[in-house]
């Protein structure tokens, strides 16, 4: 396969279980991510959505090996990440942008030290002048004033702080960035600026994003494809427009019907699919399909086995036993 066709990131049967103390000397695995497989192509943006606690962030962090995967593998650019050397190589090409611009910047470091931290960790610049030059270049890239280099993070607004975080992520010239809800903590006007910046940077630098968010409109705007997660499992994966306009999984349908529509006339005519009950505890997940306890179409089959994650239409993957009956 040529590099053009080969996916940049390939996630195979990724599992991440956290041991939770449930009594004296007794631990129960919390299945934060349970058997998730997908690919991300070079230069594309994969949006990852789902409600709080469904394991989106854990997927992102496990791909970057911030948590050691319990099982499964991550293949980056054709090479599985197994040894320490693989990981060191991978760390030079991948990075992360965090949700909270307040806790993701060390309050005791100046902006230039924060941005240069990845450079210093990998010892990429030995000449202090070249390092300085690179810092100013990065600040310019994300629209920060170079006079701010010697300031501390607490002197900036949320949007500016997020720009500092993005500049830090760009420092090592990464190919792949995991964006963990990078705009959720910002107000709407700043969200637009930051998202457009992500778009521009992708065009300029040819970046590949895994964009985690719970705001469906943001994800639809920036993503090429959208993946929907529920309780540690992936339930649907499709092209952005397809997933947004023709969701096949009952959970995705409900999720997308909950997106607020900024036009009252259309909003009044569209029906919201309200789900019954709460999301079950991942410590005590239902047997079979995890969604069956809240699914209006659930039958006995759903309780027996986990539906396979299969391609129903071209490029449209769904994990549901009754997908054809529901949408037929």
């Amino acid at each position: 396969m040529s590099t053009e066709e080969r996916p940049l990131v390939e996630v195979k049967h990724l599992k991440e279980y956290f041991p939770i103390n449930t009594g004296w000397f007794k631990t129960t695995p919390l299945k934060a991510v349970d058997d998730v497989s997908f690919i991300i192509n070079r230069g594309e943006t994969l949006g990852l959505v789902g409600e709080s606690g469904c394991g989106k962030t854990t997927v992102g962090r496990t791909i970057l090996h911030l948590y050691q995967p319990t099982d499964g593998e991550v293949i980056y650019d054709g090479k599985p990440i197994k040894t320490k050397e693989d990981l060191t190589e991978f760390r030079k090409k991948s990075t992360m942008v965090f949700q909270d611009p307040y806790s993701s910047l060390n309050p005791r470091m100046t902006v230039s030290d924060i941005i240069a931290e990845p450079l210093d960790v990998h010892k990429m610049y030995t000449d202090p002048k070249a390092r300085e030059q690179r810092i100013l270049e990065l600040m310019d890239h994300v629209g920060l004033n170079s006079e701010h280099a010697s300031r501390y993070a607490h002197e900036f607004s949320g949007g500016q702080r997020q720009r500092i975080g993005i500049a830090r992520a760009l420092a090592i010239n990464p190919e792949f960035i995991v964006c963990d809800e990078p705009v959720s903590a910002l107000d709407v006007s700043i969200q637009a600026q930051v998202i457009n910046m992500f778009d521009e940077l992708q065009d300029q630098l040819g970046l590949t994003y895994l964009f985690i968010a719970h705001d469906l409109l943001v994800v639809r705007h920036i993503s090429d494809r959208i993946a929907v997660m529920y309780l540690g499992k992936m339930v649907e994966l499709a092209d952005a427009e397809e997933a947004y306009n023709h969701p096949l999984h009952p959970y995705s349908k409900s999720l997308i019907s909950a997106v607020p529509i900024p036009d009252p006339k259309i909003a009044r005519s569209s029906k919201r699919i309200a789900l019954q009950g709460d999301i079950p505890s991942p410590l005590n997940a239902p047997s079979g399909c995890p969604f069956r306890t809240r699914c209006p179409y659930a039958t006995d089959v759903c309780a027996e086995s986990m539906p396979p994650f299969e391609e129903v239409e071209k490029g449209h993957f769904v994990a549901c036993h009754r997908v054809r009956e529901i949408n037929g």
Partner: protein
Amino acid sequence: MENKILTGHVDLSQFHVDPIDFAPASEEDKAYMVQMRPSSTFFKDGCKRLYKNKVAFVSLIVIILITLSSIVLPLVWPYDYAKQLGNQPGRPVDSSFNNLRPMEYAASERKRIEAGESVFPHIFGTDSAGRDYFIRVVYGTRISLAVGFFASIIVLVIGMTLGSIAGFSGGKVDMFIMRIVDIIYSLPDMLMVILLASVMRETLGPAIDGTVLAKIGSNIISLFVIFALLYWCSMARLIRGQILSLREQEYVLASQATGAGPGWIIKKHLIPNCISVIIISTALQIPSAIFTESFLSFLGLGVNAPMPSLGSLASDALNGVTSYGYRLVIPAIVISLIVLSLNLFGDGLRDAFDPKLNQ
């Protein structure tokens, strides 16, 4: 009417337009518009707040004055802390030097004054062995401060090391260290101190005889050992708690995502963020160490005679407390002054540097 306004053309000649107003701004104008506040570091901010806190600032001055005088005065004072003034070689003991009241002179000194010589006064009088009491108090202050300072450094080093190891590694290591802390906490403090001090005096005394350490005295060494063994717990707990919460911060995760190792994370992220807590609790540890030293000396487990410490001075004064009450009052006042000002200063430091209070 409305239409007229909308369609009518504007006669520009009616406006007095000065072309200079539309010229691009010169570099000077731009520089004038850019008002940059000088960047303030966390440390500078803290110092500013500390300076504004009058109580803490006065305490700091008192501490500096006491420390400086305890260092400088023994060097320039005409009397020595161990010298019995009535005990001149080759002469019978002159007991008129013993138990002088403040500013009193002994018989031989009065003769010299009458002869026109000037004699340096005994500001606080002398003790029962004829030693100048003022210099003994000054020297005792020096010993007490030194013990307090070094004991807190020992506590700091041990507490910081064990605390950060426990906090950073977590799991079984954390559990092991914290159970030791719990055990030490559950022992009665003073009982342990007295037991250890008396055991150490027996065992250490012969061992260090004839070495440099003999001059310091086995009691002071055992005092340091006691601090090293028992008093690091609260420091270790404090630092463990700090590291535990800092470890979960996203900037540590960001650092890990770039591939930084534990050494880098501790050095660049964890220690700089808890340094203020460390400084503050060390500053608060000093008075507690001084207090313990005074208490032990008072019980006779402190410094070796003739070396004075504030506690042993107070203890000695008990014998003649009915006639010479001031000998108990003076060291007591000095202890209170040191402990109070260090505590107030420590509180001021915490107010100025604790980020939780001012964010």
